[in-house]
């Protein structure tokens, strides 16, 4: 234990620096220190701005709070943000710019899985740590990446057994027809069967389908106890309207893995009443961390109506990175990754978030909720759910050089 490694040395060094800075005469210089550069790529305009805007606001809020608290390692954090305009080609371009021209210390961002896969190899090659802070289909195994969003197994493992326990065993699944929907539907079937349920039918819908009349009739013919929905986007929102309009809402209960992520339940109002969901975050969570978060958001932006799962996920991502920098005592890549792998935890608005060292995915609280009057009522909190889907395929401790996104066999 006599050998002094680089990390200990840096820790000691930063402790010395902290000590030196404690003398008031030097505080003025801290602000003038060279800033830490945080890069962000998000769709702040274009068709995905509904997701990107709140995420961008959350990122800036987190950085403001860090700077108000004196910065990181006595250096201010500076945001370099690019608007990718909902265009995948721009992700590649801006990621290159962040890596080569701006030489940032970390990148947060990406929304759709395609955008993440566009920039992940660039940032890995440039050796810039990358935080992807969005709920997604799971399976990314890359030591350069940290994922702070929920994966299907975390959600579905809570949601489906709860729905079966409440309402019965026969299940009808509706899902969007692309990789997220297909994968989520498979997880729904697996957890339904494990909980003693039976999937009577699964229907997939292209994202532009907005007429669900025949589907609603088919569901009634199948007489399920529960409808499970992984429908995505504006056109699919029509399903909930038509479902309520035909009077089915009070006949067959529903649970969803997607409704509410973009605050859709506020638009639907009473038509979403009684739908069961499971997420890491809802503004209704009653915790000191969430109250402080909402208050800060309100002070910065006025209205808290835009706060949603993705915004909080991004906020927690930045907070986690900041905590890792503090722990590592540097923004250097390897010490930072080692700090992340040391089982680090933060207290976010959605509860405690721990990074699983084997997968670099988040272990987090999942809240079982029911929509009521345009808001959510929290029924039960499942603490510290591990990302078991990604854990089944990914072990970065055994294979630190892995950089694939696995398709998880279920």
């Amino acid at each position, binding site marked *: 234990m006599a050998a002094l490694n680089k990390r200990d040395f840096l820790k000691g060094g930063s402790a010395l620096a902290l000590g030196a800075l404690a003398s008031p005469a030097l505080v003025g210089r801290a602000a003038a220190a060279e800033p830490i550069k945080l890069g962000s790529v998000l769709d702040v305009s274009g068709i995905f701005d509904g997701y990107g805007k709140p995420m961008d606001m959350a990122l800036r809020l987190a950085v403001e709070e860090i700077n108000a608290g004196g910065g990181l390692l006595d250096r201010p954090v500076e945001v370099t943000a690019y608007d990718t305009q909902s265009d995948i080609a721009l992700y590649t371009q801006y990621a290159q710019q962040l890596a080569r021209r701006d030489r940032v210390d970390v990148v947060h961002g990406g929304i759709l899985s395609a955008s993440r896969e566009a920039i992940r190899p660039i940032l890995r090659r440039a050796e810039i740590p990358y935080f992807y802070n969005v709920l997604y289909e799971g399976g990314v195994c890359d030591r350069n990446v940290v994922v702070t969003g929920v994966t299907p197994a975390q959600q579905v493992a809570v949601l489906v057994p709860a729905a079966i326990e409440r309402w019965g065993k026969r299940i009808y699944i509706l899902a969007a027809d692309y990789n997220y929907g297909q994968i989520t539907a498979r997880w729904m079937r697996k957890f339904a069967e494990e909980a003693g349920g039976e999937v009577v039918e699964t*229907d997939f819908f292209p994202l532009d389908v907005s007429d669900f009349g*025949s589907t609603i009739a088919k569901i009634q013919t199948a007489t399920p106890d529960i409808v499970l929905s992984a429908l995505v986007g504006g056109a699919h929102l029509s399903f909930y*309207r038509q479902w309520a*309009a035909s009077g*089915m809402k009070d*006949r067959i209960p529903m649970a969803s893995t997607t409704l509410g992520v973009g605050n*859709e339940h506020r*638009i639907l109002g009473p038509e979403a009443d009684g739908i069961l969901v499971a997420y890491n975050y809802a503004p209704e969570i009653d915790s000191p961390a969430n109250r402080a978060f909402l208050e800060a958001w309100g002070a910065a932006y006025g209205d808290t109506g835009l706060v949603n799962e993705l915004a909080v996920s991004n906020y927690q991502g930045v907070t986690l990175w900041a905590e890792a920098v503090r722990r590592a005592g540097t923004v250097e890549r390897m010490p930072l990754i080692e700090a992340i792998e040391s089982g680090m935890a933060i207290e976010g608005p959605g509860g405690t978030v721990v990074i699983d060292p084997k997968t670099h995915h988040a272990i987090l609280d999942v809240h079982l909720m029911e929509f009521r009057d345009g808001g959510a009522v929290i029924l039960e909190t499942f603490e510290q759910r591990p990302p078991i889907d990604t854990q089944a395929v990914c072990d970065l401790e055994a294979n630190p050089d892995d950089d694939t996104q696995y398709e998880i066999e279920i």
Partner: protein
Amino acid sequence: MDLAGVIAIEVVYSVASLILISAGLAVIFGMMRVINLAHGEFMMIGGYATIVSANAGVNVWVAMLVVAPLTVGLVGLVVERLVIRVLYGRLVDTMLATWGLSLVLVGLATMIFGNTTAGISPPISGFALGGYQVNGYNLFVVVVTVVLLASMWAVLRLTRLGLLARGTMQRADMAAALGYDPDRVYMATFFAGSALTGLAGGVLAPLVGLVPTTGAGYVAEAFITVITGGASLIVGIVSSATILGVVSQAFTFATRPVVGEVALLVTALVLLRLLPQGITGRFFRRAT
């Protein structure tokens, strides 16, 4: 037996919504030979007009049946005066201009309303048909469509205005020689077509989650219906909507919604291969 009733309602609704979506286009494209690629965006504006005015306290029926058509009619009027007027008879140019227009309208709607989903609840509740629950609003859409078709027929066939419009579309020079100003007739017809499109957008608004890009989903269906229908305005869209609606719903019920969509497109392809002038190019040639 109940199921048969439910399926019948769904099929009729599907046919009616196709007619509703394409009625405005049938006037603008079928009568005036203007390819309006902003047709879907006109519907989107009708939807927003309905939702915004209903949320502002206007009676929801008034919002759908009056505010939406008037708003879109006025938008159409402005567009006709500024853009379309100088492009009559230039098919490709109108296509390019209205495509650009559709992009502008999507952009404007995004700036004003944001890229989030908007909507209102259908004002009619569902009802039971035997053991099944049926969406009551679907029946309302059917009624609106029937009334719309009847009044379109009456205006075109029984009034002097309709005669004038049809005459001008066929021989603008003759209409001018008889002392009517074709420019004003075109303007009025474009207004009517836009208003019909707005009505469709307004009536369908409570059934969908409206986003600024919603229009893209309608424009293809509308063109397919109008082109498959052929030259006659009313009989054309009714016959093509009936064939396409029945086929797509039959496949949707038998299999999945994706197959239903594919079946609709395949049917349209086959029909146009066999009847390049549309259904009314061969049958019902003398109908309106």
